[in-house]
């Protein structure tokens, strides 16, 4: 289904030449996009919250239907928690530096630290799974282990996405790119903090229920 006809092509050309000049409009765009991108991330956070809420309710239902046992959480999880909390802190620092317009270099350092901490967290989670496997506790061993592997894996997956974006942003910063995507950065900060909060919640859930 093509959408182009002669008239629209010509108008495109015209429009293009116009947009180059109308700088006021671009400014307007800038303000707008700051707003929209921010509400976008909050909608996303809401969606992720909902899915994990669904998993939680599933967990509660499943707890009520027999063969629910107990799962000894690997100790490494607490270390991982500290790592993730720390990463949130370092990312805050980075955000602070950027907003205070001190050259992007300093900020980029903190971003790097953050994403390294994030990676460390993921590795730590992997370690936790290895510990469980060593005890002969696998995904299908019992409902508790099923939920543990599932929740931790999905959360780690989300963290990895965050890390990927940070890598991209760090690259931008180091290259001190003329158009550093500030909006994207701020969204990532929100997302990252949300991941930390989500993890603390999941940890508590696992402690109390699994």
């Amino acid at each position, binding site marked *: *289904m093509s959408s182009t006809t002669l008239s629209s092509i010509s108008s495109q050309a015209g429009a293009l030449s116009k947009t180059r000049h109308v700088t006021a409009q671009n400014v307007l765009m800038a303000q707008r996009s700051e707003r929209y991108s921010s509400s976008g991330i909050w909608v996303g956070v809401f969606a992720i919250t*909902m899915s994990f809420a669904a998993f939680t309710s599933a967990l509660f239902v499943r707890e009520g239907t027999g063969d629910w046992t107990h799962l000894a959480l690997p100790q490494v999880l607490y270390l991982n928690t500290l790592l993730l909390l720390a990463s949130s802190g370092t990312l805050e620092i980075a955000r602070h530096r950027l907003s205070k317009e001190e050259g992007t270099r300093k900020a980029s350092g903190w971003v790097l630290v953050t994403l390294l901490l994030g990676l460390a967290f993921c590795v730590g989670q992997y370690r936790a799974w290895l510990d469980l496997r060593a005890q002969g506790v696998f995904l299908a061993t019992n409902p508790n282990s099923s939920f543990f592997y599932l929740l931790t894996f999905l959360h780690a997956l989300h963290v990895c996405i965050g890390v990927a974006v940070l890598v991209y942003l760090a690259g931008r910063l180091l290259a001190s790119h003329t158009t550093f995507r500030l909006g994207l950065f701020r969204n990532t900060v929100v997302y990252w903090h949300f991941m930390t909060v989500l993890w603390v919640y999941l940890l508590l859930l696992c402690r109390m229920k699994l």
Partner: protein
Amino acid sequence: MQEGSLEQAHVHAPPQGFIRKYIFSLDHKVIGKQYYALALVAVFTGMILSWLMRIHMVWPEAKLPFLEWFSKNGAPGGIITPEYYLSLLTMHGTLMVFFVLTNAPFAAFGNYFLPIQIGAEDMAFPRFNMMSFWTTFLAWVVLMLAFVIPDGPPIAGWTAYAPLSAVGRDAGPGMQWGASLWGLSIAIFCVGSLLGALNFIATTLDLRAKGMTLMRMPLSSWAWFITSCIALLAFAVLLPACILLILDRHAGTSFYIPAGLVISDRLQPHSGGSPLLWQHLFWFFGHPEVYIAILPSMGIVSHILVNSMRKPLLSARVVIYSMMSIGFLSYMVWGHHMFLSGMNPMSALAFSFPTLTITIPATVLTLMWLGSLYGAKIQINSASLFALGFISMFVSGGVSGFFLAQPSIDIYLHATYFVVGHFHMVMGVASLFGVFAGTYFWFPKMTGRMMNESLGKLHFWLTFVGTYCIFMPFHYLGLIGNVRRYQSFVDDFMAPYLGWHKFMTIAALITGASQFIFLFNLIYSRFKGKPAPENPWNATSLEWSIPSPPPWNNFGAKHPIVYHDPYQYGVKGSKGDFVMQDSPEQVVSASGD
């Protein structure tokens, strides 16, 4: 693509090259058309599946050689096997609910017109937008694969109740790999829909043009906005449900499968799962899904009715609030699908009341439409015919809800044809009428050419009368206890009613055939239709203030400024009996309240 900073990501340059323009396009208009095309393919597939089911049901010995060629196990000697009937049923339901009723009124039209109606250049996140379509497309491909694998499509129905859907091979043909493809496809579909919904919400909240207050948004945009809020919640729950299902099927977990099941003489290696869990998660999505399908059509129909009435609705606000409360209530009623599933009988009553309560906003909506028709100057054309037909359908399908909302009556009517008739009319046909209306109304804007009116009217009459002939008897047969999802009626007591089934089948064949008129009209008018002016319907909303079809950035360089409520009809305007939203001329507000 271009290295514009995010601050200007959606001010993308005109796309270059075929791929960028039409395949992996960031343009919400192209993406909208892609969704529409996908829905079109899905709806015709689904329709043909329903034909096969109806034919087999009334002529069980009918030999369909082409079907044997298509699936040797499914139709040996051209005769549909019981399991293949269920495969057709499952695929029909899945295609229609997910890839037609969710895609066409919401994703397709929403993508195309939401940004334009609120005066934006594009969606908030064009890349997400492109991703959401291609994810949905991938979901469709995965689902279609079930037709070609040796195992065949799943046989668990579109609701895929556990444990039937969760135990795998032993549950029967199609349940080894077909059902896995189903689960995977739905999971992928959820991701696509979540991305889409996120985009819709962000766009509506933040990309509205100057002066476009929320209350000045056209009702269609409102419907898409509310729907995207529902979808965000619904699919965020269905996705986990599908993940658990896939794990049960392939990772040996026991979320849905209890202990001690013996299927095909094999003791299933599971323990402790809860089949009710699937039903709860599924219907928590499933009931709002009904409104995901119907709300956009309500908005589209209101949008079109106002235009063809040449006078504002009695109260656009009331319509908006009704749609909101429907969306809100839709999350408190999922249990009415499970009255007989073994929930606490008390909860049945708890679910019954909000379900009955939904009839209030639904009635208000209907009265708003009817009341607004009073004293109007209704212009009859294909679009308005389908819009009026929508009202009739919505009422007919709605009143049967009275019965099913009551647990006591559900004891008798649950899982009968009454239910099938109910949801086909109110969720299926009604929202498709909205899509048809929208197509006849917006086609000129989308393609720059008018659709053929006489073909459109012919299409309407056949479809309108035809659908009543098909689905009214469903209710009657339900009343005498005709059970659904049966591939043939071995029970003696059904014999006297087979005549009605034949009648329904023939009606279905004719009505279905008449949809090819519509298809032809689409294709013919796309290339040979007479060129469309900028505003063929003398409409007021922003999409009619730009060329047909719109340029790649919708409004060119100028950013529209909105001065009025969306529906300034029946006023003294410079162009006639209407004033467009972006025209600065002063009018006495003619809104109904």
